[in-house]
């Protein structure tokens, strides 16, 4: 079974990216043909932020499920109480797996935030964080 292609990004309160990662064949460069579309990931996710901004006021849930679509791509979003948005671009629907993945990432994000040296809205460069996120992506997605 082929692994789905995924693009994950954490967006800060000022619409600035804090962390981004790609999983699946695209990330390993196995899909040479699609390589030229990689830059589209950022466009699609960025466009979906508008949809998120509208949706957040209609619900109190943190997990917003699929917020936007672009061709065969879905964008799922998760909003923390502090206004940080987790966005995931994926090409296969998988609501529960993504929910769990977001929750795990949320916990990791809080742990990073708890470090008093962490500046608010600063990019997360921790290697350990990156490893954990990738491990959770393998587990849930």
């Amino acid at each position, binding site marked *: 079974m082929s692994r789905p292609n995924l693009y994950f990004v954490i967006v800060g*309160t000022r619409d600035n990216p804090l962390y981004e990662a790609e999983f699946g064949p695209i990330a390993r460069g196995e899909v040479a043909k699609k390589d030229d579309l990689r830059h589209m990931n950022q466009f699609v996710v960025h466009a979906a932020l508008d949809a998120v901004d509208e949706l*957040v*006021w209609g*619900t*109190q*849930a*943190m997990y917003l499920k699929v917020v936007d679509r672009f061709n065969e791509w879905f964008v799922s979003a998760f*909003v*923390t*109480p*502090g*206004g940080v948005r987790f966005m995931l671009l994926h090409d296969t629907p998988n609501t529960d797996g993504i929910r769990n993945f977001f929750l795990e990432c*949320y*916990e*990791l*994000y*809080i*742990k*990073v*935030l*708890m*470090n*008093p*040296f962490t500046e*608010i809205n600063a990019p997360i460069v*921790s290697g*350990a*964080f990156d490893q*954990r996120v990738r491990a959770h992506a393998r587990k849930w997605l």
Partner: protein
Amino acid sequence: MGTVVAPPAGRVVHFLQRTMWSYSSSLWAYHRNAAGQLSSGNTTVRGTRLLAELCLPDFALLSNARMSRPMTVGKRPPILDRNLNKTRGSEVSLSAFAFLFSEMLQYSQKRVSGIQDLEKKRVCAGAALSDLGYRVGVRMLELILFRERNAKRETRVLGVLYFINTTVWKSLFGKPADSLEKGTDNDDEYMISDNDPLITKYISVPREMSSLNCGAFIAGIVEAVLDGCQFPARITAHSTGSEQFPSRTTILIKFDKSVMLREKALDAGR
């Protein structure tokens, strides 16, 4: 220093108990600093700055790598391995907190030019009391809701105010705030009052600085929580002491216009 702090020995309160993981490393930093061991120019600033930051409810999470060696027995796990829900045995004594807070005041005071700056103005990055509070608030918001079962994001003005009044206050000070009122003159003003704020318990403000209210720290926390929930507001702390409650402090919240407009739109949409 103008601020006098006289903490009683060994009095344990549940201050920040749910948010603190352990405090030994920061206490260690405090004592080290107090002993004047961090004396070379740059280190002192760093040490004091550290201390101010340590007052954050999350201070215990300070990674071991950044400070040489804390007093804890055994090795502490890396941040990402620690349990976010562990709250038992993580209380800190009020006296220890009072020491830290007095140190923070001194840190701020050295870096600002007047009382207003000390309370509010973002003159030099992060030195004012409300800035320090802001750093606490941002983390508190995420942490409190993470620990709560079926947590919800607040989308309405009253909801978020009630959340601050009860949940945030309880997890910070062990009790809800004493009152939450709506301003009589303006629709966009709300007031949260505490009859005897824990933060200023052992602080007596000298006469020449009588306009200073250390509740500015709490105001910073409130501001961060509101900002996080996307309710931008102007927040100030005022002394409203009476004979019965001399240290009563009121946090005045004036919401941004955009918030009131959105609230109206949401009301209409119901």
